[in-house]
């Protein structure tokens, strides 16, 4: 397709997902086959905004995403930025989009916008949210933003998209267009539709000059476990040999007294354990109740106000680079990519 050379350059990297899906008439299911040209043909207005450089990194349903594909994706984005892309759009299935976005956020220190986008209603239907989400993501990728973000519908209407920080966003609804929500902070900004005007709040990291920096090592042997009442104590032993484990505990960050022994064994065996909360909103605090104090005494690391999935990705990334327990604990509790807020958000 002819592209206007006077326009700025954006890269689109595709991993599959609903934004690029079509019906597979063989199985009747919606599958994800992508040709970047398809997107430009389907959404002609994109061609008026920028020149596009499109690559397919993977063609998978997002539940099949892996850490090695994160690495491929991080390297792909890094190359595009080094080659002069003004911004990068990543099309991604919505189910695990927030995992991938926060992984890229840690693996890649980017001076330009890296925008994850998907759709909740498949592209083959006239009511699909894919066109509006794609146009808003392109506008965000051309904007003053300078961090990794997720851009998706802000409401059920076709009125605007929200720009979410990659390390603070979560899919909070199985099917609605506005399923993605910023947790623990308001969205970084909004992109109005159909004007595509971008409004960024003060929190948004701004575009800057300088090179992108890639740290693409991750440790795969890290688990995530959601505690529940009556959880058998021996369940923890399944994580023997793991280098890290994130717990989604109850309330302020608790597990049962019966689990203490198992955790002691894990930590004793060299596993780094980070506590987060099933509440999702709010900060972990293990100094209030006895069980919490026991956990701290064992060496469990408080995950501050990090989302459990973000803590998982972060722990994978930290363990990809560090071994020393003190350094691991320090990094987990240090804000690196906006995943920890110094002051807890008073919204909810």
């Amino acid at each position, binding site marked *: 397709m002819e592209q206007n050379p006077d326009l700025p350059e954006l890269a689109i990297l595709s991993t599959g997902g609903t934004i690029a899906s079509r019906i597979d008439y063989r199985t009747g299911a919606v599958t994800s086959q992508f040709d970047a040209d398809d997107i430009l043909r*389907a959404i002609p207005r994109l061609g008026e905004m920028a020149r596009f450089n499109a690559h397919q990194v993977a063609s998978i349903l997002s539940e099949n995403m892996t850490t090695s594909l994160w690495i491929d994706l991080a390297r792909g984005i890094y190359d595009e930025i080094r080659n002069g892309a003004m911004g990068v759009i990543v099309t991604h299935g919505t189910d695990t989009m927030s995992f991938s976005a926060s992984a890229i956020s840690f693996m890649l220190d980017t001076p330009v916008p890296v925008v994850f986008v998907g759709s909740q209603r498949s592209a083959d239907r006239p009511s699909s949210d894919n066109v*509006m989400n794609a146009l808003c993501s392109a506008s965000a990728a051309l904007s003053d933003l300078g961090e990794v973000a997720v851009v998706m519908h802000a*409401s*059920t209407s076709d009125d605007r998209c929200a720009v979410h920080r990659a390390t603070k966003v979560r899919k909070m609804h199985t099917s609605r267009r506005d399923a993605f929500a910023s947790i623990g902070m308001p969205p970084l900004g909004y992109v109005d539709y159909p004007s595509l005007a971008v409004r960024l709040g003060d929190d948004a990291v701004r575009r800057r000059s300088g090179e992108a920096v890639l740290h693409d090592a991750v440790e795969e042997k890290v688990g995530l476990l959601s505690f529940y009442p009556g959880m058998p104590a021996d369940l923890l032993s399944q994580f023997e040999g793991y280098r890290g484990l994130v717990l989604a505990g109850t309330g302020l960050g608790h597990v049962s007294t019966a689990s203490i022994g198992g955790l002691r064994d894990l930590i004793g065996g060299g596993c780094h354990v980070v506590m987060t909360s099933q509440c999702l909103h709010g900060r972990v605090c293990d100094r209030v109740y006895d069980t919490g104090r026991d956990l701290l005494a064992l060496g469990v690391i408080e995950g501050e106000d990090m989302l459990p999935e973000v803590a998982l990705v972060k722990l994978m990334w930290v363990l990809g680079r560090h071994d020393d327990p003190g350094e691991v604990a320090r990094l987990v509790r240090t804000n690196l990519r906006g995943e920890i807020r110094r002051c807890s958000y008073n919204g909810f």
Partner: protein
Amino acid sequence: MDFEQLGLKAGIEIHQQLNTKEKLFCRCPTRLRDFEERTGEFFRYLRATESEMGEIDRAAEEEMKVMRRFTYATYDTTCLVENDEEPPAPLNAEALSIALTIAKMTGMTPVDQVHVMRKLVIDGSNTSGFQRTALVALNGRLPEGARIETLCLEEEAAQRVEGETFSLDRLGIPLVEITTAPDMHTPESVREVARTIGMILRSTGCVKRGIGTIRQDINISIAEGARVEIKGVQELDLIDEVVRREAARQVNLLAIRDELRRRNASVTPEPVVVTGLFADTKSSILQRATYIVAVVLRGFDGLVGREIQPGRRLGSEMADYAKKCGVGGIFHTDELPAYGVTAEEVAHLRECVGAGEADCVVLVAAAKERALCAAQQVVRRAELALAGVPEETRKMLEDGSTSYMRPLPGAARMYPETDVLPVRIRAERWEEIELPELISVKAERFAAEMGLDGALARQMAYSEKAGVFERAVESGVRPSLAARTLLGTLRELSREGVAVDRLEDAAFLDVLTRAESGAIAKEAVPGVITEICGGLSVDAAVSKVAPAMSEEALLALIRDILATRAEFVRERGMGALGPLMGVVMQEARGKADGRLISELLKKELRQRV
């Protein structure tokens, strides 16, 4: 008109809402709401998507000429499925059962597996941009012989409130769509087939009733004409008129075509900009327009203004096409001078665009983009006039004439609904379906077995209350009393403002059996029902309105009346019965049954004469 000779071919598609508890693809009730009860609104844009072949459906493309924003109203009886925010639930089993029953009643063959398809509809009436539809059965026949091709289960569309605002309460109500073969050759036979299908549908007792719950689409063509689908005919009695008018329209369009060909007519495809010509016009529409273009139709003079249906001209058809671009309408020289446009302006216009006396000039006035789009549409419609009758989907106007909606949908319009699994129809399920008695058969039975006269029997059989009627008769109520109360009394009370909808069948049967046994007077029935509808129990209503007078008390009353009118009784003898009956009835005020009064009065009178 001799319709056989014209080669009239017509078929109908009947859409009937089913009275199921829940909607077809979600578990919301099938209840219609007032717009004022809405709990929220949201808005969306729809766009035509490419089919797998990479082509955009021509009907969908037409709708896309202007980008439209649709607003939807939600209710506490609608959910995320109506909002197109959740995948559809499995196909409603109750709706499928009703559809299968109808299929069996018309001798159809069910499909092995029901596959739900998507039919592209982007006029805003479906939040998803498509309507879900599923073929359930094939090849049936009506008692009088007309062939039924298909029976489908479909979801009802959202109701347009006004402009581009829709109400989601109606979206998703199950419909059956019954399509006949194009076997009908006269307007009357189309109406009668529609009537029969309507009767069969009602015989199930499971369809919704009332305005808008059944709609007929009619397919019509004549020899040399074209297939035209007329949407949304609601009144049965208008069907034959619609068919007659469409046949006439096609005849007239063919006559226009022949005349155009004889005149060697042609269409000038490039519109001429004539904005400057009307700088000082008195026509307010032309004054307001920022852009005016003229389309020259060579050899069309007098034909654009020729009537093709009552109240409709070829010019109206062109205007319909132009309106798709968002303009209000068009002017053409067959109707000018008028609307503030002077004869001089017309002459000047003809001169400037090089149009002679035999030509017609069409004017479109609007903003530039819309005016050019509309001019293209006028050119398109004029070219179609040279070819004859275009294939179209049309909508019925109030009197039975029609206006253009969109081209007939192409074949690319259906594709599989991947979110709903197919449903297998087992042979046993089909075998087990019990056929309900046809209303026409029921009417005959009511006449023959219950002694109702023909008209009353038919009225009773067609009524929603037929079931209550039969139960009343079974419990010993005389058919005439039951029918009169159901069809007469209730309607009168309803007209007086009594909320008869609130009367439950059990209470109604209770009142009728009491009236039959004489426990309450028949004259007291309307009063008792009124009180029940007002919220009283049957017992409370009876003791308030008609505390039954004991036989002794009644006898005492009669004797008292006879004593005070002894003179009158002597004079008239048994002839006093009639007048005295009235006196007693009045005194008893509905607290005693008329028959008992008559019996006692007669006996007492006889003793005195």
